[in-house]
């Protein structure tokens, strides 16, 4: 028998420690910081139940929030607990803008395995800003503690999910997206847009992927999805950025975002040198230290030409991608 390639590779001597990972992308195994341009705000491990096949929930209904965490280290992780927050749609979440939902019970996770941690407090999503709220989950263990709160791009213990899936029918839906300056000085803040069109997305339903169908759309470029997409015959189409999306003026609110500690800001700035095409710039504002702005968005429903429209918005401050937001318009 020819052993698989992974048995042939040598690596550094392993450490006998836990290695907790809440994935930012389907192929994520916990390397941090994430490369610039990684959509870390669409965590496939953060889920809500009950939900429809596209992950949509009904406003006003009680749901359970959960996060799946893997321990990819060589030692068990003991006393792992998750905490959960919600916040209004925002491209740059900080603890000051979020509300605690609750926490999970503590569990121990054997080396290499995964556990799904349920929030013991139910949550009732509110229909505000034309979409669902954002979710944050943080996991921590005494032997593998959290290092950078609310920063999924810097810390594998954090999962963030900012995504709105729109109904296939009805009028264009409006929402307010929040932008925040995480730094302690004024920052040039820009909003960038990439739009993609994907045909055949209904075939994702019931296929048994390793991620939810909506996450397959959000992470369509992930290497682990190439084979399933080919098998299902999903194809991309040509489209102009912003097709079916209306973007209003960005307005400073005068509120404070709270910002991050000095170490987190330093780590964020380290990514400034990463060259990355975040897409077309669609808005710009100079935000004061820890300042907050909002921008109005409206999306046409029903996808486009029979395909799903996926709009990825990325906030960039001082050359660093701080966060983002996804809007998915499904075909009728």
């Amino acid at each position: 028998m020819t052993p698989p390639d992974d048995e042939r590779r040598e690596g550094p001597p392993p450490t006998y420690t836990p290695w907790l990972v809440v994935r930012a992308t389907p192929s994520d195994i916990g390397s941090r910081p994430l490369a610039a341009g990684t959509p870390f705000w669409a965590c496939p491990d953060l889920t809500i139940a009950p939900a429809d096949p596209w992950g949509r929930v009904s406003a006003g209904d009680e749901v359970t929030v959960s996060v799946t965490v893997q321990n990819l280290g060589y030692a068990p992780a003991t006393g792992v607990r998750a905490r959960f927050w919600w916040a209004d749609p925002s491209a740059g979440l900080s603890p000051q803008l979020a509300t605690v939902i609750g926490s999970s019970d503590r569990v121990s996770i054997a080396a290499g395995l995964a556990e799904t941690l349920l929030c013991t407090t139910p949550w009732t999503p509110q229909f505000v800003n034309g979409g669902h709220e954002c979710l944050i989950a943080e996991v921590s263990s005494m032997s593998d503690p959290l290092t950078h709160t609310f920063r999924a791009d810097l810390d594998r213990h954090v999962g963030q999910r900012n995504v709105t899936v729109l109904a296939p029918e009805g009028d264009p839906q409006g929402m307010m997206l929040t932008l925040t300056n995480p730094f302690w000085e004024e920052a040039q803040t820009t909003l960038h847009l990439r739009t993609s069109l994907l045909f055949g997305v209904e075939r994702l339903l019931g296929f048994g992927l390793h991620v939810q169908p909506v996450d397959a759309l959000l992470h369509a470029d992930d290497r682990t999805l190439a084979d399933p997409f080919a098998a299902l015959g999903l194809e991309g189409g040509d489209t102009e950025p912003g097709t079916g999306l209306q973007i209003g003026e960005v307005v400073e609110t005068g509120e404070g975002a709270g910002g991050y500690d000095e170490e987190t800001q330093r780590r964020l700035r380290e990514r400034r040198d990463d060259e990355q095409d975040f897409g077309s710039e669609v808005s710009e504002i100079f935000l004061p230290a820890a300042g907050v702005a909002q921008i109005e968005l409206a999306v046409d429903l029903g996808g486009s030409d029979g395909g799903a429209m996926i709009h990825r918005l990325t906030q960039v401050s001082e050359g660093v991608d701080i966060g983002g937001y996804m809007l998915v318009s499904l075909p009728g």
Partner: protein
Amino acid sequence: MTGVPTQFAIADLVLETMRNDGEAVPGDAELPFFYLGAIGPALGDFLPTHVEDGASGTNAPLFGVWFPILGLLAGTPGTPGLAANLLTLKDTLRRFGDAVRDEDKFALLDMKTDLEALPGVITAVRSQLATVNGLRTALPSAIAGVRPRAKVLPAGDRHPRDAVHGHSTGTFWGKLRRRAAESGDPRLEAFGLGASVGYAGAVCGNPFVNGVVGAPHRNHWWRHRWVSNYIDSWVWGYYRMRERVREAGREIVFTSSGRVPVPPYPAWDNIPGAELQDRFAIGGITPDAVLNAVRDGIPVPPHLPDELVTLWLDCYNEAVGDPPSPGVDAEGLQGAYAMTWLTTWIASSAELLGATAPDRINEPDDCGERPDWVTPDGGVVVGGTLVPPPTISQPSPSVAELASAIAVAILGVMNFVLGNAAAGIALIVAAVAIIDEATDPDWDELRCHAGWVDAFIVQLDNAFRELLTVAGLGPPYAVQLAHNEIQFTASGDIVPSTAALRTCRSPSADEGEDYPASVWSPQTAAESNWTRYPTEPVELPRQISYAEGSWWPRHFVDGFSFVDNGPTAVPRFPATQDNPLDAPGGMPSVLDHDEWELRMQRAELGGTPQGAFGNAVDVALALIRAPQDELLDWDLDGDRGSAGRHGCGAIPRASPATLSASEGGQL
């Protein structure tokens, strides 16, 4: 080789069938002898063992591997060993926990002296752990010494372990069970009955193990041991769980294309805590009796009855012992039994190393996220010195780990965890010291201290068990058989790399023409990296290891698989026996002399004699129900040597009359 847990699982199924069929089975007093017989040729692993000779002399090489570990556990005259210290530590903490739970102040006052002694015990354990590091260099050379010797005559020049697996096996085991049956001694009768199970387990199980290993025992002897421990965990967990779920009218079924069992591995029974040593405890054997002999360098007190020793040795010497194997005498056999029993105690008893699986470690409720003595970044203050936690670096879940590197890392963690326990114990001692008749303790504080220290001690236990598992000396917990389905479905990676998908499932469907791996040499065999499937060139002639299919170990145990056909189906879980008893013309092939001759001829001609004997339970029952004067001389390692071929079952051992040493020199 199939290990003690697998052999006992097969034995239980055989007993169950015999009881259901109204056949006589050993009584309670004789059951230890039955299970000792069921261990079968695995008893040869420690044969001979003269404890007083240490790792030298004629002792079994496996004893040489264990000897430094046993020495660490046993201590030296006048100095308690690691086992005694750990047992003292745990006993004191258990009594302390009981007193705190009951808020019994006077019980605490009574144990002040014992608690004050614990820091000294911790210090002793730490210094003993420091010596474990030296084992990293001692173990590999000892493991290299276990390398099988050439299978050339006379058999007395081989390790006795290899002789009982590969030389005149049918003659030896046949004599043994026939004479036992004729003895009129119910102990020996039970032993002989068990010996049939032992023979069947080896002859049906070892070809399966060979497939997972990638080679027979001869080529990768330590990987064989390492893999066997995982298969033991699978078999033990599966059959104990199956027994329990059947009581609820269910079966264990496999989902996700056969990868994931339901109920899942974490719910399966574990070998740690199974107390398997109790099943064959004979003559009042205790851990202390054996460890004290190691400590004092004296012979192990005899535990087996003389009649059994005489029976075993007579049969061995008549079948194998010409010339006699050095050291294989009454004391050597008693020592082999004692070591088999003691190592089973270490593996399966909760007494020394606990039995809390890694996913069952409980930290105390309502005591915060960490103990008072641990800093936010995970460091621990011990004696005024801040000890940082082990550095976390990114693992690559797809990289097969090197056993040595893992062992170093585990030792580091053991020291760190022990430091945590030491700090907590220091606070406990200080808190208890201020208690008197007028002063009540802060019960909540003590409860938290006790809870955190318990959690650290459990982690210490598990690190020990992990060390043994990595070294190929102990079984994993059932949860450690599970794989990460997220990683598998996303990337095809098996994470952890030691999950059952890689350590317990037969790869015979995919092995192509690459079996057996690695050309064997009695002098220069490369050290095996036993955690990895061998990639060295194949040893010619090529073979297949086992019946083609991605089988789980149940295939060789009783051969049954079950399908969940829906809640309204009748019968709910239809069974298929994928590996029934092979009995063409009514004669089980394992007993068929013509079949033996046929395979022998094919082996001489370089052919591939296909055909399995069937599953171990059915083969054992066939042997028991149709006794023959002698069994056939199948190679119980499932090894055809470097000449000839074999099929999906064991193969005939070549006799010097039919196969020359040059053609079949390693048979």
